[in-house]
């Protein structure tokens, strides 16, 4: 059983390995490599979860290399880390499977294996971000992730994608740079690279009052950097273009998984490096709260104003990430639970929406504006149903996954004085805004057409795999919505471990 402790490490190394060997295969085989990788990794992550559930401490640290901490490198796994690893793997798997047909159209034949290489790299990076206990390793894999994501975005044949990818890269790199500067500052102040060690040092320094300013700046830089990369307001505005022009599979992965990886790292920073006490004392949490709320509202408002379905979905991502930051900003365990669940719900739903949007626009030859898309749901029934499920989940209708975080956020809002009102109001207004654009679109795609353009009826037998994937995603969504207790219990345990174990 101890063998299971190796699994996190194996997943990272295996991903790197697979990304290399993908180069040798033609497109079809490359795909299977990725599938193989994802399946193995999922099983491994799942085993880690099970192992930690039944072990005494519920957590283990794993020495990488021959040297112990604080000199050597380390990865750790509690309950949250493998869970999110598993979640990311599942989402990537479903996105690739569902978006495969579209991928064939969007990406050149000869370049497709590069696409899979990049996916594997992204996967590796995400695994590391989940499991790492070392700040420098984190930075390395942040960079790998950035480059791989950029490549994913660029892969589409459209010229617009190039522009979007460039913009994405620039801003992402700005974020990374800020993180790097922050790391350097932190290292020079604390002298450590491993999370537990940094944590002790910071606590000691903070208590004595030395180095408060450099520490604050360092932490601020790191948090801002990661926030920029994950699309927190006001750094969200480049997102729609990127997601909107990439192939649905890539959009799904990026919005559903990559941004969440950065957020998870951010959570590690806050709770394992800075410590919740300092986080709340310094007031950084209020800034996150405010920006989160602003993101919720502004993101939705922008979504209302756009007339392109994928842009709308992308702006919606900005809004949903705002929810997460609101939860982080509140600072309590209940709020953290809500934020984590929001990650789960959003990761499961957003790729489904992107896939569905792609399917709908396929019926009208790739057009993405609302006028052309009217009645498209009748021509591509699976996409229509998927979009409906996704939209209802985003709005927060009970029985769908999106309702649970809404509920958890509301519960966590109480007991914070006037912040309670802000949070509750923000939730209510955001729901209304979500309704306006999501359900408007939903009604739209089922209404009779007004623009006369050639339409292609895509029967579901032609897109068997897509249909299956989309149905599976919808079912998963419903299951999570109806039976959220297992995940919540897992999170509650995991949060305890996450916050307390060093």
């Amino acid at each position: 059983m101890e063998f299971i402790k190796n699994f996190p490490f194996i997943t990272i190394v295996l991903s790197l390995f697979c990304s290399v060997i993908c180069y040798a295969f033609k497109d079809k085989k490359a795909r299977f490599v990725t599938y193989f990788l994802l399946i193995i990794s999922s099983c491994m992550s799942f085993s880690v979860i099970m192992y930690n559930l039944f072990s005494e401490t519920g957590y283990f640290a794993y020495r990488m290399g021959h040297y112990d901490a604080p000199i050597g490198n380390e990865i750790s796994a509690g309950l949250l880390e493998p869970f999110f690893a598993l979640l990311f793997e599942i989402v990537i798997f479903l996105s690739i499977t569902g978006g495969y047909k579209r991928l064939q159209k969007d990406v050149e034949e000869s370049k497709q294996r590069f696409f899979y290489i990049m996916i594997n790299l992204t996967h590796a990076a995400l695994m590391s971000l989940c499991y790492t206990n070392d700040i420098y390793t984190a930075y390395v894999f942040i960079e790998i992730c950035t480059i791989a994501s950029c490549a994913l975005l660029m892969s589409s044949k459209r010229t617009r994608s190039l522009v979007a990818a460039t913009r994405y890269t620039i801003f992402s790199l700005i974020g990374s740079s800020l993180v790097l500067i922050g790391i350097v500052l932190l290292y020079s102040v604390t002298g450590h690279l491993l999370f537990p060690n940094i944590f002790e040092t910071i606590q000691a320094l903070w208590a004595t009052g030395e180095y408060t300013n450099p520490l604050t700046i360092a932490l601020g830089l790191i948090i801002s950097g990661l926030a920029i990369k994950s699309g927190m307001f006001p750094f969200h505005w480049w997102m729609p273009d990127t997601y909107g022009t990439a192939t649905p599979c890539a959009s799904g992965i990026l919005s559903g998984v990559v941004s969440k990886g950065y957020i998870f790292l951010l959570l590690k920073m806050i709770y394992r490096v800075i410590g919740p006490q300092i986080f709340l004392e310094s007031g950084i949490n209020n800034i996150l709260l405010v920006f989160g709320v602003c993101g919720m509202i502004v993101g939705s408002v922008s979504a209302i104003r756009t007339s392109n379905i994928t842009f709308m979905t992308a702006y919606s991502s900005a809004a949903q990430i705002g929810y997460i930051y609101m939860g982080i900003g509140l600072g309590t365990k209940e709020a953290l639970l809500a934020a984590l669940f929001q990650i789960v719900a959003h990761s499961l739903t957003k790729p489904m929406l992107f896939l569905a949007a792609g399917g709908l626009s396929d019926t009208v030859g790739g057009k993405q504006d609302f006028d052309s898309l009217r009645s498209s749901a009748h021509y591509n029934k699976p996409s229509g149903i998927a979009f409906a499920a996704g939209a209802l989940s985003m709005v927060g209708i009970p029985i769908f996954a999106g309702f649970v975080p809404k509920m958890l956020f509301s519960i966590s809002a109480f007991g914070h004085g006037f912040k309670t009102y802000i949070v509750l109001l923000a939730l209510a207004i955001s729901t209304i805004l979500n309704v306006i654009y999501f359900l408007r679109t939903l009604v739209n795609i089922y209404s009779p057409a007004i623009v006369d353009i050639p339409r292609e009826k895509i029967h579901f037998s032609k897109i068997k795999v897509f249909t299956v994937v989309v149905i599976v995603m919808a079912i998963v969504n419903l299951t999570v919505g109806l039976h959220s207790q297992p995940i919540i219990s897992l999170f509650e345990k995991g949060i305890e471990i996450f916050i307390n174990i060093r």
Partner: protein
Amino acid sequence: MNELFLITPIFLPIILGAILFFIPFKNQKQRNAYVITSLILSSVAVWLSAFLVPDNSLTILHFTNELTLSLRLDGAGKIFSCLSATLWPITAIYAFDYMKHEEHHQMFYCFFVMAFGTTMGIAMAENILTMYLFYEMLTLTTIPLVAHGMTMKHNRAARKYMIYSIGGAAFAFAGVVFLIVNGAGTFRLGGNLVTVDNETLALVLYFFAFMGFGVKSAIFPLHGWLPTASVAPTPVTALLHAVAVVKAGAFALIRLTYYAYGTEFLYGSWAHYVVMAFSIFTIVYGSVTALRQKHFKRRLAYSTISNLSYIGFATTLMTPAGLVAAFCHLVFHSVIKIGAFFAAGSVLHNSEREFVPQLEGIGKKMPWTFGFFTVFALALTGIPPFCGFFSKWYIATAAFATDNPLATVGVIALLISALLTAIYMLSPAVKAFFPRENAEIHLDEIKEAKPAMLIPMGICVLLCIVLGLFVRIPVEIIGEVLGI
């Protein structure tokens, strides 16, 4: 029969409705038969539940350890569910003839039947989370009904309805969570809130919840969706906006006030006065605006807005007498208003005339329709011995029994509204039967409504009279069932 049976009235119609969409019917008759059978079966299930199922709760599933989806049929639920169960099949009969000439029937009837199930879910919810779930589901299952016809007008109406409803529920959600967090989620007459940490927060959230659920109950200023939604086909307007959707809103307000927060907690607080004031204002506003409407169905829509706040006003009295009065008007108004919409719909269907000035003289060609309409007009105004008078009586006596000066204002508002009701309801009737000498009337192609449309109207008229003449019985039953 135990409480497991409660699943039937809720999920049977939902399943039957969903299946409807996929069955390839040979002709309309077959499909109509299926629809009416589904509805009657479900109705029977409701009535059986009302009489035979004990007052225990049934947990269907656990969202989390504390949050459950549970059902329980108590007195209040029985009244609402039986009312809806009676009126739904009647509306279906009316709809068959009315919708004969429309398209997209499958979808229409599919959601028509499903909406019945979701309404039952609201009636039989044991806790506020369950009610909230079915509340949202009701909105979702009724949006396609409003949007039927799919013209720009219909789409806009559906969108407006959607945004208002779900938006309202979003605000109400804060109150819902507050109740759950404070252990008051389960419905119990008298409420569960004993003490709270933050009373201001509790009352503010009550106000949000009241206005949020009040959207469906068309409280000013959140009533805007109702008149716009009257573009829907008349069977939809009749049922949903006279009985199911709006009464679900009123029902939710009653649950919120009497069974969740509890009147002891709320009585005399500032929130109490504020919600009462909104109700009173809506009573008058609805009637005044109805008077100014020339469009027949919109006039009835504003009339509904006003009457819903009669129920709201009775609810905000926050006494047992107020509760009885609220339910009384809930039942009586449903019967009256659905009949009135049937009549209006027949006129629209047979003559294509939508505006009141165009109704001059039609009484000659459609005497039964307008005769029935006159009865509904008198009942709505509150002329004895029709039932409408007695529900107003109960509301007024309950209002005077509280020593609340605002309640007296409410009674005055009620009477002003009654006068305005007389004017705006009787004037179409008078116009129809007594056309002016020199009015140009073209009545050539207008025929009386077919029996399929007249019979439902006739049943409603009969109910108006019977409920009025023997009003003691329904009121006693209501009181007993509620446990007062």
